[in-house]
Structures are given as C-alpha cells and as structure tokens.
C-alpha cells in the first residue's frame, strides 16, 4: 500500500495509463462487435466473438482489480478472501454445468425402451 505522499504521487501516471487501457479495451470490444470488417470468424455473433469479448473484459477487470483496487500490493488475507470467493463462484458455475449435463435427469424424460 502506498502511504507516503511521494509514493501516492508516483502512482498517478499508472492510474491514467490504466484508465486509457480501459477506454481502449472498451472501444476495441465495440468495434469488433459492430464493424463487419473487424468481425473475426463467421458473420454475426459466434464463438470467436464470445471468446474475444470475454478475453478483453477479463483483461479490463484484472486491470481494475490489480491497480485501482490495489491488489498489486495487498496483504495475504485479502488475496485469500477475494480469490477464495472467485474460486467458489467458479466451482458453483461448474457444479451447475455438471448438474445440467447429468444424464440421469435428462434420460428420465425420454420414453422407456421396449421391454422396460
């Protein structure tokens, strides 16, 4: 954590740089989605747009967390709390995915096979 006035002032440039990166990242995401000549993959929205859009968004989120939320120089306890919750959220989504893919649930909706 920057605490002395000199340390705090030395970060000003970084804050502006990150703001610039966020603006550029946002514009890039919109251009890829709205300008056909920049559209990668097939015509319209597809998996490539999805991956690119989410990749840029994730990068932007990392910038905000790393610099603006000071995760670049935090104490261990904060990392455990925040990244622990992220991991739990990922597990939650994974469990949902697992449950949706569970063949027992969906096979049960199919007609019974002859002889059963």
């Amino acid at each position, binding site marked *: 954590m*920057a*605490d002395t*006035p000199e340390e*705090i*002032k030395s*970060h*000003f440039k970084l*804050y*502006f740089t990150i*703001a610039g990166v*966020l*603006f550029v990242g*946002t514009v890039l*995401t*919109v251009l890829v*989605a*709205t*300008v*056909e000549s920049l*559209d*990668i*993959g*097939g*015509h*319209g*929205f597809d998996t*490539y*747009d*999805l991956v690119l*859009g*989410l990749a*840029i*968004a994730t990068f*932007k*989120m990392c910038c*905000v*967390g790393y610099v*603006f*939320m000071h995760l670049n120089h935090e*104490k261990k*306890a*904060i990392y455990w*709390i*925040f990244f*622990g*919750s*992220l991991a*739990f*959220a*990922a597990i*939650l*989504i994974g469990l*949902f*995915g697992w449950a*949706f893919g569970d063949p027992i649930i969906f096979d049960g909706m199919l007609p019974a096979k002859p002889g059963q």
Partner: protein
Amino acid sequence: MEIPYIVNARKDTGLNNSKIAIWLFLASEVMLFGGLFSSYIFLRIYADYPWPERTLPVLPGLINTFILILSSVTVVFAWAGLKLRNWNMFVANMAITIICAAVFMVFKAKEYAGKFHHHATQTEDYGWVEGHLHYDEGDSTHGNAYVVAAKEVNFSVDSTTANYLASIIAQAGDKLSLKRDYVIREISGNTFNEKVLFEAGTALTPEVIAEAKQHFIKARTHNQELRTQLLKDAWVIARDPNKHNELVGLKDFDSKVKNTVAEVHTALVKKAENNNEFLLANGNMVFDADGAELKFNSGWGRTSDAKEGDSTNLSLLDGTVVTGTAGDSNFHYRYVDALDFRHLVMKAEAKGLHADDLIEQSPILALEGEGGDKIRKIWKTHKEWRKHLAKHLEGRKDALTGEGRKPTEIDLYRVTWHQMYAYAQLDYNITEENWMQVKDDHQPSMIYDITGMTKEHKATFPKEVEVPREKVRFDSVFSPKMNNYYAIYFTITGLHGLHVIGGAIVLGYYLFFGRKMYNSNPEWLANRVEVGGLFWHFVDLVWILVFPVFYLM
C-alpha cells in the same frame, strides 16, 4: 465506545478492520453476481427460443461504461487527495464521481423506460410482431382490451375492487340493474326475519355493493360462529356417557368419538337450518347489463373466448364475471416496428418442416388493412434483400475456417425498423446496386442509438395494424414477463443499478459530511473513502462484464 483498528492495522493481519470487512463483503458480492451470471449462462445455453442477442442499444451502454471507468479513476484520486491532505482535490474528484453515478442512472432509466413502452405479440405460429400499441387519449387499455357486449355482470361483493367497479359504472352504469331481489335475513332477539335489501331493478352504485358486502360479511361471520358453537355442543353431547355409553372404555376412543361428533354436528346444523338460525350469506350480486359494451384492460382478467361474436365469460381479477358476447378485442398497433420469425423457424426445423413455407402461411402475413398490406410488402422486399446478402457473404471468406460466410438467423428472419425505413427509401425495390444501402442488422446499431426513431422513420412503418386476439399466443411489453432473457437482464442490471445508487449515497456522505472528520482525523476519512472506493471499483468491475455480455453478445 472506540472501535478498534479502524485507522491502524492489526498486528496479526497487517490490515485495519474496515478493510477486512469490505473485502469480506465483496467476496459475498462475487458469489452473488457469480450465481446470477451462471444463471445467465445456463438460461442462454438451454433457451428453447431464439436468444435476443445484440438487441440492446449499444451507445448508451458504451457511454455508461466510459462513465463508470471515469468514476473509477476519480474515486482513486479522491482517496489520493485525502492521503495528500488536499481537501479540494478530494472534493473535486468525489463530486465528479457522484455526477457520473447520476448520469449513469439517467441512461439506465431511459433504457428501462424504452423497454416498458415497447410491445410485442406472438401469434399462434410463433411469429412475432413488435411495435407500439394504439393509445387513445383517456383510454387506459392502450389498444389491448377485452370488449364484451355484456348480458350480465356478476359481482363478488366481498372482493369487488373500487377501480374495476368505477370503470364498469363509468362505461354502463345507467344500463345495469339488479337481476333479482337481494334478500337478507336479520336477527331480532330470538327471531329471524327475511327482508328484501335491494329490489330487482336497483341501479348499480358503489353504495349498493358496499351495503351488500357489509351484510354478506356479517352473515358469514354469524354463520361461522354458529357452526363453531354447534361443533362445541356436538362434542359435549358425544362425550355424555348417558347418551353414548358405547364409546366409554374403547381403545380407539378418539376415532369413534370423532365419527360420532361429526354425526351429531350434522344433525345440529340441520336443525339450525330448519329453524332459520343461519343468516343468508349471498356473496354474489348479478346485474342485467342489457347488451352494454364494456371494455377492460386485458391485464385486468382473462376471457374464455375473445373471438368477435362468440359467447364469452370475462373473469376479472377481483372475482367479477362479465357474461356476454365478445366484441373487438384485437390488438391495435399504432405502428409496427419489427417482424420476427426466428421462433417460428426454430419450431419448424425441430419438426422437420420447411420454415419459409410456414412463414408464408403465418397470420402475420395475412393481417388485414393497409398495415397488413405494408407488412407483406416489407417481407417480400426483405426476402429479396437477404438473397443479395447471402451472395455477398459467400464471397467473403471466414479467415479462420476459409469457408464462405452465411447470413445469421437474424439476417434471414428478422426485419427491424432500420430495415423497414431503408426499404421504404428504396421504394421497396431491392437491386444488385442498391441492396447495400440497407443496414445489415446483424450488427448493433450505433447511429440510430443517437437519433432514435424520428417522425420520418415512423412514417414508413405499417400503421394501424390489428392482430386478431384469437390468433395470439402471447403478448407483453419488454419486461421480465417477456422471457428469461429479459428476466435475467432486469435482475442483473437492476441489482447493479441499486449498487450504483447505494455506492453514490455512501460516497456522497463522505463528500458532504466528511469535512468535520477530515479536520479531526484525516487518515480515518481516507480509510473510509478507500473502503467506499473499493466497493465502487467492484461496481465498475461488474459493469465491465455486463456490458459485453448483454449489449454485444
């Protein structure tokens, strides 16, 4: 009482308690939004209807993203101002942050308002018409009404609501008269007298219903109390060994007694009925309506049959039932601004049917009047346009697969208002030379986000379109009722909006009431602003994900 470790760090964690607390809170927020985004993912993957991708106006979303990024920067500088003991720097940056929050919410409110005023109707074949319903001044039904030539109206006196009753009286109060005498029974000492409270032919007024309600509730209460008393009497009689000695000493005493009590109670009730001890609890008042035309907002109830000329029962939500003949209950669109056959195509393909043939038979392309003619003309033009688009895309290879590109379902089966306008500009004549002047609507619109619909645009839309209600499968404004997409959209963006408001209130408190604390303990205020700022950054973080997911995908 002094709260420990709000400025100085604890030795064990190296952090002050406020910071630990906000990060624990943010961890719970991660789980909350993680859960909501996982809902979004699975709703989208398993949607059994065409997902409305790239349907939100991009420019307001983009501006809101810029606003939140800017506010994230200013909130950091507000904190830095306090650390540098520069009050003016704090005030200026925090004020900008609050203004950003306000502007963000204005854009959001405008976006929501647009959704709640835009209507869509799904026909029985899963085709969609979108637009704005007719609005006659003073007509609250907005072109979406149940109309009944009423024979009679049956009120449930205890649940009739004032606004429904007022509407019926305003529309046909002079024609409504009580069908038969409304009789009550009164208690006078130990005698019960019947009398006619309202004679047949009495005109409908709120007072009539109110007085009948009063008597009905009184009678119902009396009857319930009498039944309870008779039940108590039945228990006393049933337990009397002199009268029911067969029950004494039995192992299954309870069940035997219950049966006996029920029999005794029935006998006592019958006796009380014969003695006219029960009051008349008539909860319904039926009024002759003499064919009066009654019109109701369709949200007020449900009708058994809305086809014009058919007999129908219209049940209002307060229990009032209007019986009669269905009138013109069609959906009256002031103008139609989009056609969408994607859901129809999805259903047709699932059954192995030829989608284009089914579209040609759709009730949407068989609508009557000038509006219907224009819809057919637009669809015909659109089919011509999409041929050119397909040919054009075939020549544009996909850089990753090397194959020719193909039109999307949106290109093929959805006609937007941008296209309707463009088709009109080309006089519904699409050629090899001019087809590219029509906006390819697979991409989100940017220009029209600024200009919006103008009178010039609206002049080209199909107007006064009437969709027969019997052909309608579903209709709604673009609210959470519409489908899961709008449900999750309003949930996530609404919750995010509440976070913006909450964060702005907290940061505003520091701005307007922080001076005293700054004078006494500036480091404490700096810690508070840092904690509030962390929350604000999290709000920005969520929006960074919301924007591409909802506006661009």
